[in-house]
């Protein structure tokens, strides 16, 4: 099928036929443990798939990023499609169940479905008999979450000689998202530790939980503006281990988001003052670490890539949801690659039975796949006119 006579309806219908392949790949990839910094099992599997698909320049780099290229007919321009491999699941044995309407499993929202679609893309393109003028690089990257700080993607983009003209970052959820702007983000850890020489007579036997609760209260009182949009997310707090032992270590993980980098910098300094003050008053050691940082930015809504993808959304009757994202879009933006983030399906919170268990809806997946393939076609065509980043 040539791009000119490959209409969106035929792609959508074909995507329905691809559904079994996507679900199967999601199960296979999703059941491989891939905690940040230990993504090798997934990386090897994906490398085999890329190799099987006879992609050009298929390789795995030192950070276990896996890439392969679908060669374009002209090959003068390059598009990158990328998704991260790591997730939060540390368990060795876990299973994804498939019901008629759902895929259910631990941490399935992150990011096996997107990987499955990306890995299967060469097969779909082959079956649809599509050809592109641009080279399309498929990259599954490592070390994205938490302390990974997107190191895998940064490493690839800093080491490759290929100049990318456009990019798509792919996420499992949510179908309909069309992110072109990245929200600024600071991912932080505050740790309160009882020092060896703690002066009990001066500070009392409170341990580390009381000072941490004071820090949390003070952080909660920091005023954040509604515009530019800013928010604070308290993710987790861990401290102590029993009923009657004074806690010697308490750790808080949280994230600050803002459309303004100035606000992020201001809040970062406010929190530093809070931790210094509480440390001085309570006598506990308080460390404050920024484990991950992203600057806000991106492309404009009027950018040709956004417009082209938006036209695909219209054809598929998808209502675009524009919001600044914390996805990997910011990394591509930092390397000068104009980029959007897309989702493949929606989640179903009513199915989940515990915090780790997550459920994805199967129904929307073909539309999600069609959206990606059609967007690639549109971006490929758009690149005949030079695409410029912000």
């Amino acid at each position: 099928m040539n791009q000119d006579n490959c209409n969106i309806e035929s792609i959508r219908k074909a995507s329905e036929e691809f559904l079994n392949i996507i679900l199967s790949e999601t199960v296979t990839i999703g059941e491989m443990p891939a905690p940040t910094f230990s993504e090798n099992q997934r990386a090897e599997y994906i490398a085999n798939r890329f190799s099987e698909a006879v992609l050009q320049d298929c390789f795995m780099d030192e950070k276990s990023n896996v890439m392969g290229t679908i060669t374009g007919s002209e090959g003068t321009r390059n598009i990158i499609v990328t998704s991260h491999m790591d997730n939060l699941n540390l368990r060795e044995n876990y299973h994804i169940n498939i019901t008629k309407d759902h895929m259910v499993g631990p941490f399935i929202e992150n990011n096996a479905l997107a990987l499955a679609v990306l890995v299967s893309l060469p097969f779909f393109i082959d079956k649809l008999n599509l050809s592109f003028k641009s080279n399309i690089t498929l990259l599954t990257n490592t070390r994205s979450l938490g302390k990974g700080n997107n190191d895998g993607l940064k490493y690839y983009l800093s080491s490759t000689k290929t100049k990318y003209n456009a990019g798509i970052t792919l996420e499992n959820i949510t179908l309909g998202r069309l992110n072109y702007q990245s929200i600024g983000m600071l991912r932080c850890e505050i740790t309160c530790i009882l020092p060896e020489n703690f002066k009990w007579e001066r500070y009392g036997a409170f341990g580390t939980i009381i000072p941490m609760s004071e820090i949390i209260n003070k952080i909660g009182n920091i005023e954040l503006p509604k515009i530019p949009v800013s928010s604070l997310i308290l993710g987790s707090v861990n401290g102590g281990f029993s009923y009657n032992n004074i806690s010697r270590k308490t750790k808080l993980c949280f994230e600050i988001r803002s459309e303004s980098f100035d606000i992020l910098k201001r809040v970062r300094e406010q929190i530093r003052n809070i931790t210094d003050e509480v440390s001085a008053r309570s006598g506990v050691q308080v460390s404050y670490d920024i484990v991950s940082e992203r600057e806000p930015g991106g492309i404009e809504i009027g950018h040709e890539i956004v417009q082209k993808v938006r036209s695909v959304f219209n054809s598929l009757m998808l209502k675009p949801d524009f919001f600044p994202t914390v996805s990997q879009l910011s990394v591509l933006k930092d390397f000068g690659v104009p980029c959007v983030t897309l989702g493949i399906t929606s989640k179903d919170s009513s199915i989940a039975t515990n915090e780790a268990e997550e459920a994805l809806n199967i129904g929307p997946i073909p539309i999600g796949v069609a959206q990606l393939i059609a967007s690639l076609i549109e971006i490929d065509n758009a690149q005949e006119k030079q695409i410029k980043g912000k």
Partner: protein
Amino acid sequence: MKFKDIITNLTKHDHSNKDSLLHTKHTINKPGSRTMKEWLSSRTFHHSSFDNIKELLAIKEKKGQKISLCLPTLNEEKTIGKEIITLKSELMNRYPLLDELAIIDSGSTDKTCEIAASFGADVYVSRDILPSVGEKKGKGENLWKAIYQLKGDIIVYIDADIANIRPHFAYGLIGPMLMYDEVKYVKAFYDRPLNISNTVRIAGGGRVTEILIRPLFSLFFPELTAFIQPLSGEYAARRDVLEKIPFPIGYGVETSHLIDIYDEYGLKAFAQVDLNQRIHRNQTTHQLGKMSFGILQSFFNRIDKRLGGAFSNAEMEKIFRQFTCKDGVYEQVEHIICEEERPPMLEIPEYREKFHIQK
């Protein structure tokens, strides 16, 4: 003759003796013999030996073989979708190694059939197949009816309750069949972690295998002890073998397959394949007791044939008794377990007609 006398007589015989009551059409080798060792080394594979699916596909096409995959089901809604998707996408959509994938259902009351159909499997209800022979309940019944219903020259059977299904469960069994013409029946074996409260423990061989089948084989069919997991529910066989053997409808089907095919062709007709781990539901000891009772019936039916019907006069009980204890009172529970058998499919007129086989 009393039942216990028959057993006593049987166990007195030397199996390497051609005059043994258990003699077969081929030479029996003693366990540990060169032939048995050769079989173990040459016909025991790891599934990765067959992971070049493109190569398997080429052999299949060259040999003009059709391959069917059968999943016998009864209330398997939790796992059936995943099994179908995993096997179909890789072995039908990507590589057309399988010509058909079907479930033969025993009358599920959950959504097994609906889910299977929605993911593209052919769905057959056992009672609707060969209605003239009536309906019997049991996994063996489904396997037997699959011979009539499915069209493959090779039929692969895979249990429908496997949580960690992967494509190698099917191609690992098909591989030896395509690569070695003399292999007629391929049996799976694996590590068997049992899924208990989200934890996994390594359980060596199955309990029934280790405390029932292996001792029985050691006594009566020493060469069959070469099978690492003779009761595994995953195997592949050629149609021209399956159609010639009777099928117990219940627990005894796997054991009887091994004995009957061994009788006819010897050990050389078999291969076994390591499929790594298989994670499945755990069964209680009471359930395994019932299973063992059924297997024993099929086993002694086969011994009986070799003795020219000596057991026909012996009273083989069909009632299996177990105990429960409630409020300090012991109560005996009786289960009627009658391991009926279906005749070789070749004896069914509709089958001969469908597959154009002369009587």
